[in-house]
């Protein structure tokens, strides 16, 4: 499938260019479309160039964890649909889809983007569970950043359905989600000695190491995930974090 050689890719990067003519630290065109699925409490479609992800948010009444009786919670899942990439297979979630979901989860959870205490209905008994489901539509690379961005866009516009203590009325709503921060994720890839963002499929195939960094609007980092086979130096990691902070700031303007 891959008809680009690593040598060619490296020589391009050396001259400061990418396969599709972008600069090394340049994202593809970002498009966000809201409310793409009306039965969800919130939903968004994000396109990074030709990559496309849809995220929907549903709310359910559940029981709190015993150690956090007054806090609601989030549950993030990701489906790498065989629909979106000829190499994806049907079946239970594999490690790639679990990592995708968990890294989105941690960005939201650790930044305390949602005020979990405000999602409590009856302490020790009933809380709101926020279910964030990620579906890939077309995989042309960088699903991680697309998913995190779509999750944030969907959360920002999600409504809390009406609850009378017995039954949830999904056709009526009682307010917005208690969203206090807007973490976004940027995955910086290292290929040879070069750092790039928002890779296309051909570039992803040659990544030596990657670092996903979830950044809050104040510039603080709230979650990270290193991937790829090669190790990073401390200087590499610092540089990658710097790039991620700059890029998530730019991305946040699209929300």
């Amino acid at each position, binding site marked *: 499938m891959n008809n680009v050689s690593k040598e060619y890719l490296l020589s391009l990067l050396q001259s400061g260019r990418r396969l599709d003519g972008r600069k090394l630290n340049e994202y593809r065109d970002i498009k966000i479309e809201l409310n*793409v*699925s009306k039965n969800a409490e919130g939903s968004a479609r994000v396109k990074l160039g030709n990559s496309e992800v849809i995220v*929907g948010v*549903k709310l359910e009444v559940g029981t709190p964890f015993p150690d956090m009786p007054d806090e609601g919670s989030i549950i993030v899942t990701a489906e790498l649909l065989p*629909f979106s990439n000829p190499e994806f297979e049907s079946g239970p979630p594999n490690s790639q889809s679990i990592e995708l979901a968990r890294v989105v989860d941690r960005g939201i959870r650790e930044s305390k983007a949602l005020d979990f205490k405000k999602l409590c209905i009856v302490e020790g008994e009933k809380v709101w569970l926020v279910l964030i*489901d990620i579906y890939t*539509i*077309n*995989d042309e690379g960088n699903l991680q950043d697309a998913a995190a961005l779509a999750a944030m866009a969907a959360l920002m516009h999600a409504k809390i359905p009406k609850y009378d203590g017995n039954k949830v009325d999904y056709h009526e709503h009682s307010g917005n989600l208690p969203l206090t921060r807007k973490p976004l994720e940027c995955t910086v890839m290292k290929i040879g000695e070069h750092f790039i963002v928002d890779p296309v499929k051909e570039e992803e195939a040659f990544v030596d190491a990657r670092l996903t960094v979830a950044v809050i609007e104040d510039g603080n980092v709230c979650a990270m995930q290193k991937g790829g086979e090669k190790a990073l130096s401390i200087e590499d990691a610092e540089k990658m974090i710097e790039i991620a902070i700059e890029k998530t700031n730019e991305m946040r303007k699209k929300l």
Partner: protein
Amino acid sequence: MYKRKSRKLDEPREMEAKVGIIKRADGSAMFKIGNTIAMAAVYGPRNLYPKFMQNPEKGILRVNYNMFSFSVSERIRPGPSRRSKEISLVSENALLSCLNLEEFPNSVIDVYIEILQADAGTRCAGICAASMALADAGIPMRDLVSAISVGKVGDAIVVDLDKEEEDYEGGSTDMPIAMMPRNGKISLLQMDGNMSKEDIKKALELGRNTCNKIYELQKRTLKEKYMVEVENE
């Protein structure tokens, strides 16, 4: 007599179709009817693995129908269910009758149907999208397949029931049908409810007329895509 607020009893909801919505797929399409949105992607014909599943006489078709967890009011757990497995099977049969798989020995054609938003009639919308996606993938077909749900709401024979009508308190019968409009043959027929022989006859007639309308939209959408492509060259 049961009456509809905003459309006639023999009038389907507003429809919209698109092809080529998923770049990585060999063929793809979207079919929207009212608030129901189905997307379909086709991959193949491609080699079938594991190898023992290959048939040297003819290729196989695999259809997978799936609803997004948030496509309905009460979230459904991601992944296959008994319902989705059954719909995958009947959709597969609905599409098989228009294909000539002898042309593709040892191969598989994968069709993935995803429901983004549901307001009844999802299997029919899925089949409409899937048959357009197969055509978009350049797979030789005897005809397109058009599908619509007909049935009875209260005492009225209707076409294209929405969710509210499916749950109608005075009783509701849902009869999804799929057809190859050119020869008028039925490739999917299911029913849940209660109807007399005469009612079924009327409903089938209504279904055929509506399938013909859907067929025109499907053909027009496919033609528009390829006409534009030729002009651009």
